[in-house]
């Protein structure tokens, strides 16, 4: 078991791309940590640097208090599951799982016993003599997991291990993975571009963009209070409403409507400020009657989500989504109340959350610009 610390980590590729731009992070012992971001944001590069498959341009990585920045991958005591599983097509499941033990010069009987033990916990006993080509995607994924479990490690690294599975299997594998990690208590770093996976699995998560962490925190915190418009637009299976607005007469003018300024932001904005109102459709309320502080429009699209409907209400250029228990019917008039308690304000210029005086965020802005 080990704590992972990275400080001032920089990775610049020969073509000039900065995949890591001064990253600082501590991943606690036994923690399930998710790295989330769009493709090309540097999350996989960071994982590969932790594994030792990429050499950082600058900065240090420590694993369990030991500086491993220049250590080859084989000496780091970690296990990695690749996106394509990297199962060897010429070996049986047994030999695949036992391969890391073979490299460690464990005797044949012992390593086969270890492989069976690891496979047993993943319901693979029946498949031990098959080759990867004869397995389904879900079975291959479990073999790849078993291979990581078969030898003692300080750290698990997962590189989008579920992205090659179909949707239903992915949900099952997710639950399974979460239980497995809780049982083993091994520090885990999990790379994904799927925000729902990160929210579901992680103890803490980092949202990355352009080689930098945009927000680090517990999933609930990241979900409820995205620290920037980028994070807000990235997190949530239903996209957050992001509506351009202007501060005027103690309220916000959104299109032709007026909504109140959220309490936590009231002190930090002045009349005339350009902002973006962020409100999750799940917290917004769909009304059939006109109401104060609600956005008026016409129902344009209704989508069934399962237990409720996602309703898109349009008024000119303005489009806002809300969830509703009933289908209001396309074309009917509707009013959307955003739910003040969960409404967030972002500055229109730099996209940062409005929750502190401008002066405090100026430092972050300089870091971002530099």
């Amino acid at each position: 078991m080990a704590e992972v610390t990275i400080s001032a980590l920089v990775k610049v590729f020969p073509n000039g791309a900065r995949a890591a731009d001064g990253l600082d992070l501590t991943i606690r012992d036994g923690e399930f940590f998710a790295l989330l971001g769009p493709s090309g944001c540097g999350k996989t590069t960071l994982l590969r640097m932790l594994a030792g498959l990429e050499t950082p341009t600058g900065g240090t990585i420590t694993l369990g208090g030991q500086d491993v920045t220049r250590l080859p991958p084989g000496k780091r005591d970690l296990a990695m599951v690749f996106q394509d599983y990297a199962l060897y097509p010429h070996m049986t499941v047994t030999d695949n799982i036992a391969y890391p033990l073979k490299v460690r010069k464990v005797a044949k009987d012992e390593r086969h016993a270890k492989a069976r033990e690891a496979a047993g916990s993943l319901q693979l006993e029946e498949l031990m003599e098959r080759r990867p080509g004869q397995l389904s995607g879900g079975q291959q994924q479990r073999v790849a997991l078993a291979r990581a479990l078969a030898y003692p490690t300080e750290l698990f690294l997962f590189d989008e291990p579920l992205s090659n599975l179909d949707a239903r299997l992915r949900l099952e594998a997710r639950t399974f993975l979460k239980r497995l990690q809780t049982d083993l208590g091994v520090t885990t770093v999990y790379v994904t571009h799927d925000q729902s996976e990160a929210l579901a699995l992680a103890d803490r998560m980092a949202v990355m963009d352009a080689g930098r962490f945009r927000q680090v925190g517990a999933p609930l915190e990241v979900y409820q209070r995205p620290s920037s418009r980028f994070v807000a637009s990235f997190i949530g299976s239903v996209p957050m409403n992001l509506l351009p607005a202007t501060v005027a007469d103690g309220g916000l003018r959104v299109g032709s409507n007026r909504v109140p300024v959220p309490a936590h932001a009231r002190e930090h904005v002045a009349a005339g400020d350009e902002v973006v109102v962020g409100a999750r459709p799940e917290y917004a309320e769909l009304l059939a009657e006109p109401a104060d502080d609600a956005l008026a429009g016409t129902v344009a699209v209704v989508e069934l989500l399962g237990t409720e409907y996602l309703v898109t209400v349009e008024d000119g250029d303005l489009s806002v989504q809300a969830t509703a228990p009933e289908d209001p019917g396309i074309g009917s008039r509707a009013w959307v109340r955003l739910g003040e308690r969960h409404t967030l304000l972002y500055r229109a210029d730099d996209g940062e959350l409005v929750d502190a005086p401008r002066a405090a965020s100026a430092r972050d802005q300089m870091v971002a610009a530099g």
Partner: protein
Amino acid sequence: MTATARTGARAATPATAARPPVVGPLLARVGFYVFALVVGAFFALPVLWLLTAPFDADPTLSVAVPSLTLSNFAAMFSNPYVGSSLRNSILLSLGTMLLVVTAAALCAYALSRVRIPGRDLLLYILLLFSSVVSGTAAMVPLFQLINQFGLINTHTGVMLVLAGGLLPAGIFILKDFMDSIPPSYEEFARVAGASPLQTLRDVVVPVARPGLAVVAVWTIVNVWGDFLIPFILLRSPDKAPAAVVMFNFYTEGGQANLRLISAYSFLYSIPVVVMYLFVNRRYGFRFYGGIKR
């Protein structure tokens, strides 16, 4: 021919003029079959000769129904150089094959995995030169080079020159195979703690085995059929391979000894046919080298 004429005549009548799309393709198809038949016969004749002449008591250069006999083979085996030449051919083929497969596998692996500027250019230049190196144009310098090394009239010299000529194309074919092996295979081995050589032995070579087999068979077939290089670099007739020995089969009158040549050619072609069947059976004859997937 009559079929073509008849369909042509029918196409002219007004009743069938309403459906020309049927006649056009039919004509094209008949024409294609006739063309294929002529081309096929052209290539089949030498093979037919090779099948009939060895068993003919008095073979000529034409394909004829043979007056069956095995005396040609008896005469061939009484020739002192037949046994040794086949042995030499096998030795040269296998030796060159080992050299080419080993060196090409290491080179192709390195070229596939290491990013160096101008890598593809280097490969194309190598490929271009390979046809020159073992070709006729370089015969004099090659002879002098081997002479300097003191390798004239040795099988080692012949193997080195042949391997040198075949390596670039071998590397080119194998690099494509190596490129198709996902890097994650080796990365997993690295994370597990395997050394580069261990990775090569446990992962890369077994996965690239079809490619290695292709290069091995291709090398053997090439060496088996090569005449010029052993002819020039080997002096004593007991070291000459089959292709060179066949060149010396004359009758006392100075005529080509067709009885001996036909029987020997028959024997000489068997290994290549056997290897074709082996590759075909094992790999379905998918020669994937050079094809981008």
